[in-house]
């Protein structure tokens, strides 16, 4: 375990450095002169030089990478081109909206998905079970922005019962929560299907096992087998999947935040990209990637901690 942990952590550090390098070189992938693209055709040569120096583009490339990495490690991601505010400040304003959204979506996925899965397992092969299997495929395959658009059409356009623009005010929790309903549901839908399916399969695999058959023969009550053993076994993989889901939600959040005009990290990124505001793009994408890498790491480690069998498999393969 210790070797694995060390290797995994070392790998994470290397990947984070690789991500930073990639982001710091992003500007150079632009065909043509990045500064002229940023400033537009009307810029005077003097202005171009000023911005070039400010972006550090006249330094040798290794120095540019070094400066970006060192800056990022010190919490300095540069200044927004247009508003001259520090990028870290923009990110700090955006993060809470995204994090609240993602966590609400996951909570929703667990609260709806687990009971659905339990119900389906309870009535295996019933009509309800089959209908649910179909529904969960539909849910799992539905991209969150499509779910967002459909929810918006039904609840904001047709029924006009839920707000679809902005976040409401933070000071008024009820207002904020109401604004959260549609975007969080849109993000949760995939995971509801996923969790329902996972819970059903894990429960059924326990219920079909030899020890359950033997216990039943010995007179252990169904209720105990079902809720105490089978459900417990299903919860562990579900939590692991949900914790890795937190990372995946960020990708979906980008489009969902645009659709519902929520000033989160995703919207910050997209707006910066369309304005060619490179420092903001670099900073926001770096934060998203860090979040993604770290939650994946945590999910991986916690999964290993809860389920010792994974360790055994690992040493058997010799990875």
């Amino acid at each position, binding site marked *: 375990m210790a070797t694995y942990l060390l290797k995994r952590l070392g790998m994470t550090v290397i990947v984070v450095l690789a991500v930073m390098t990639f982001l710091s070189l992003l500007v150079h992938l632009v065909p043509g002169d990045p500064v002229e693209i940023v400033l537009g055709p009307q810029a005077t040569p003097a202005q171009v030089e000023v911005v070039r120096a400010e972006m550090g583009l006249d330094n040798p490339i290794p120095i540019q990478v070094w400066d970006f990495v060192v800056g990022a490690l010190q919490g300095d991601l540069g200044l927004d081109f247009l508003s001259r505010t520090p990028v870290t400040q923009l990110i700090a304003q955006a993060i809470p909206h995204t994090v609240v959204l993602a966590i609400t979506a996951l909570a929703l996925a667990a609260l709806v998905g687990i009971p659905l899965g339990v119900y389906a397992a309870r009535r295996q092969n019933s009509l309800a079970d089959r209908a649910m299997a179909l529904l969960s495929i539909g849910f799992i395959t539905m*991209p969150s922005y499509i779910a967002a658009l459909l929810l918006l059409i039904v609840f904001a356009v047709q029924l006009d019962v839920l707000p679809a623009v902005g976040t409401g005010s933070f000071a008024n929790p009820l207002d904020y929560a109401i604004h959260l309903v549609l975007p969080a549901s849109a993000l949760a839908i995939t995971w509801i299907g996923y969790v329902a399916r996972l819970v059903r399969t894990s429960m059924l695999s326990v219920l079909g096992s030899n020890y359950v058959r033997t216990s039943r023969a010995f007179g252990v009550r169904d209720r105990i087998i079902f809720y105490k053993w089978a459900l417990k076994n299903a919860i562990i993989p579900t939590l692991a999947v949900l914790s890795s889901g937190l990372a995946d939600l960020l990708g979906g959040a980008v489009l969902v935040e645009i659709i519902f005009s929520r000033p989160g990290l995703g919207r910050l990124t997209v707006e910066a990209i369309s304005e060619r505001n490179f420092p903001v793009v670099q900073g926001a994408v770096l934060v998203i990637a860090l979040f993604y890498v770290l939650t994946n790491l945590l999910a991986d480690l916690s999964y290993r901690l809860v389920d010792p069998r994974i360790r055994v498999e690992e040493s058997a393969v010799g990875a």
Partner: protein
Amino acid sequence: MTIAPAPDRVPPTSAGLRPLLGRLVRRPAGAFGVAVVAALLLVAVFAPHVVPYDGATQDIPNRLQGPSGSHLLGTDGLGRDLLSRILLGVRIELAVALPAVCTSLVLGLLLGLVAGYRGGWVDNAVVVFMDTIQAFPSVVLALVLVAVLGPSLTNLVIVVAITFAPQSARVTRASVLALRQSPFIEAERALGAGTLRIIGVHVLPNVIAPLFILLAMNIPSAITVEAGLSFLGMGVQPPTPSWGVILSEGFADVYEAPWAVLWTALALVLTTIGFTTLGETLRDVSDPRLSGAKGLRYDR
């Protein structure tokens, strides 16, 4: 004395195409998947000949209409026929998704083969490369790359291919790692077979089957990414009727007429379910060992 060549212990990867198709169609989910995919391919090929309108002619007086006899699905903000645009869009979606996913599979196959077979620092380098690509949610990475390279159909294909390559690389690498240890490969090596022969004749047939499943599973993911980027204005550019473009234009008028968004969303959902059920059934009938494999995560 000559040594007889070792009998090939390669398990048959599939018992031919016909029985596989038969087994696919016998399951309801498989039949559904095959039907949807076949319908999409037919539409992609024949759409320009069968659509009621050309999808480009504007008819401003009749803009934002609901479904009617002359426009079965209604019209968009410029009075263009939605049915025609969505059907023509199928071709655009597949024109991005098919080449992108195929390229990603080939790229991943090569990376996975080299990494798994060579091991050592080559393997480590490939793994870091893949981990770095996968350190971003795929939509975010694709968004950044397309924005930097410039939005065009070709760039979209390249970007989606890069974003998706690590998946197939991982699958290939894992099977190569397992195969490399197996006795029949060892025997082959002892008999003096070269690296190329071992990889080409023995390893390749064993690692390629799961990639066909990834192909079916990843096409909807590629369509999802394409439509998402085009929705943000960072993919296929209007007036080309990509589904993302139709969604984005429809979204502007969604409070007046939700039809464009509604129909396109449903088309996308149907497509995604079709390809995914096809992929899942393919996985179940072709190799039951894979049925626990992680599929179905479009966002990766």
